[in-house]
């Protein structure tokens, strides 16, 4: 126990002495939490639209105004030539072309129906789908408005319609940051627990100090604990820092228990330092460790449900995500912070994380013994 204290003191002394390390631990989380949730926003605005109005009627004017005033669209061209609109798409100036045909108003009144052409630039698939969706709903809305205006009011609608009213629970205004901040916080803990710990241990190998340590009577598990505990502590410090930013900057006050959040953060960090230790036993140099963690981090990031919903992944990918500790913690973070879930709601994820932590740490320690 006394030896562990000496090890921890030495470890913290080295960390505080390394300006790079301090920067990573304190400044990186702040910047990531301030920048990422605002920048990586899935809400699509500023969709460039070109309207080819062959009709130039009151109705087509109203429709155009309605589209522009929605706030999602920016009018980049207004002519009466489809080819000009298409040219704008080709030059990447426009994302969508809406063609309003000749006699749009007249036919609408006379025939009670009219067709519109919407051409979408689908190079950026998300933007295309969402832009198209927005435009369709605006057109539908408009369609309803004119029906209301023109059709004689009857007691019952001639055509039965289903009106859908949705309300967004837990994130009523669909604020993207509310969804992202808890996830990014988990990502930061992953970096500190998984990456930095791996580099730190490999550094001892690389500069040879581990040789000197190994000839002392120090016990292996004490040495490993001395290496890993600092990163668990630093992870909790960063977690606290992140929670403060979430509250102060984004106004995200966790609905659920703070204690439960910290309990999860602790279990998660123990799991991740096990991962870091495992990486370190498979690498001789910091560069090797870096490449290995980079490989895993990319997969963790893209498959953890941080950016893309796990539910919309193909089945085989969903199975992979079940092996990513990140995905459990992100899920739990969102559940506790946004929904106020209790322990029994997240007991499953808790158990899985504990099992993962045990497996990773045991594997790492066995492998650590084998290599030295």
């Amino acid at each position, binding site marked *: 126990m006394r*030896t562990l204290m000496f090890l921890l003191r030495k470890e913290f002394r*080295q960390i505080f002495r390394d300006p790079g390390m301090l920067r990573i631990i304190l400044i990186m989380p702040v910047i990531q939490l301030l920048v990422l949730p605002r920048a990586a926003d899935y809400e699509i605005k500023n969709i460039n639209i070109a309207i080819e109005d062959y009709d130039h009627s009151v109705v087509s004017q109203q429709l155009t105004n309605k589209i522009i005033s929605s706030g999602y669209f920016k009018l980049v061209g207004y002519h009466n030539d489809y080819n000009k609109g298409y040219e704008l798409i080709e030059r990447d100036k426009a994302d969508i072309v809406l063609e309003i045909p000749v006699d749009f108003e007249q036919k609408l009144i006379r025939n009670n129906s009219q067709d519109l052409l919407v051409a979408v630039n689908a190079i950026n698939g998300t933007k295309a789908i969402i832009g198209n969706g927005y435009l369709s709903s605006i057109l539908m809305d408009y369609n309803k408005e004119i029906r209301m205006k023109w059709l004689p009011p009857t007691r019952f609608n001639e055509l039965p319609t289903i009106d859908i009213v949705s309300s967004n629970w837990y994130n009523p205004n669909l604020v993207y940051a509310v969804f992202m901040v808890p996830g990014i916080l988990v990502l930061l803990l992953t970096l500190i627990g998984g990456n930095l710990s791996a580099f730190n241990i490999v550094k001892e190998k690389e500069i040879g*100090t581990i*040789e000197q340590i190994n*000839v*002392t*009577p*120090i016990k292996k598990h004490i040495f490993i604990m001395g290496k890993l505990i600092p990163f668990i502590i630093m992870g909790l410090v960063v977690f606290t820092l992140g929670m403060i930013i979430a509250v102060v900057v984004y106004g995200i006050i966790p609905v659920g228990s703070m204690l439960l959040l910290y309990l999860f953060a602790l279990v998660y960090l123990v799991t991740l330092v096990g991962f870091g230790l495992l990486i370190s036993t498979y690498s001789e140099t910091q560069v090797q460790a870096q490449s290995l963690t980079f490989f895993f981090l990319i997969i963790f990031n893209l498959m953890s449900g941080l950016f893309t919903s796990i539910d919309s992944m193909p089945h085989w990918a969903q199975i992979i995500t079940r092996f990513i500790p990140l995905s459990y913690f992100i899920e739990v973070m969102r559940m506790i912070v946004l929904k106020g879930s209790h322990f029994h709601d997240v007991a499953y994820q808790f158990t899985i994380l504990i099992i993962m932590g045990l497996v990773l740490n045991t594997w790492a320690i066995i492998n650590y013994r084998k290599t030295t």
Partner: protein
Amino acid sequence: MNPITLQNITKTYEKGKVLAVDDVSFSVNDSEMFGLIGPDGAGKTSIFRILTTLLLPDKGTASVCGKDVVKDYKAIRGMVGYMPGRFSLYQDLSVEENLNFFASLFNTSIKQNYELIKDIYVQLEPFKDRRAGKLSGGMKQKLALCCALIHKPSVLFLDEPTTGVDAVSRFEFWEMLKRLKKQGITILVSTAYMDEVEHCDRIALMQNGKILSMDTPDKIIKSYSEKLFELKGDNKHKLLKDTMTYSDAVGSYASGESIHVSFKKNGKSDADIINGLKGFLESKGYQHIEIVPTVPNIEDCFLSLTKTEIHG
């Protein structure tokens, strides 16, 4: 009981493809300074790593302070001091912090064993707040030695402690080791510098994982089996090349400013040999050639031994 014993130690790497230590046996006496001498790749570091319990031998047994290196590795770790060939202290910790840290790992303190390291530590004391990484090469070695001594080991393992250190610091370093030996510490040291063997009580000349010869430095020199001559002349490089073609000589190589040429002892007198070589070189157009009999040094012995190793 000998503090260090090796019996038929063999170690291979890469699943037996690379033979690093080949059936090596020797033992070191109490309070003796024993030197492993040989070029890089001779297997010195592997022997050190086996004796300091960092490496398992493939075959053979070894013991340190009467404890088996495989079974009793834990006991050995508390009793030996090891200074690896590469500086392996924490560069971002100060001199004093390094020393304190290693003392605490052995459950001791600088104060408790200050007597033992005093001689060395006084030289380091002015820099005790300096980061280890910022020390000069000689100072680094002294700090590493202090750290290896801080728990009062009975056996000290020093793997090429003087490599990369200037001549003055090297000399000082050997003087320190001699004082430690007087205090009863057994020392196993390795070096690639042949001129350092005189500091050792006994040495083992090593090459390709094998011990070629093992004795006191004096006896090894006495057992030199050839006749050695020193050759001086103009255009040393070309002269050496031409001397190598002289079929009577068994070995010719550069040694400092001159060329050493060795001959088999076959009853020929020195004068005959000198005249023969002189005649050969003069026929090649050399003038002002000086040839005198000379006393072999350890390097000559080593080269003579490696030659028989190759041919025999």
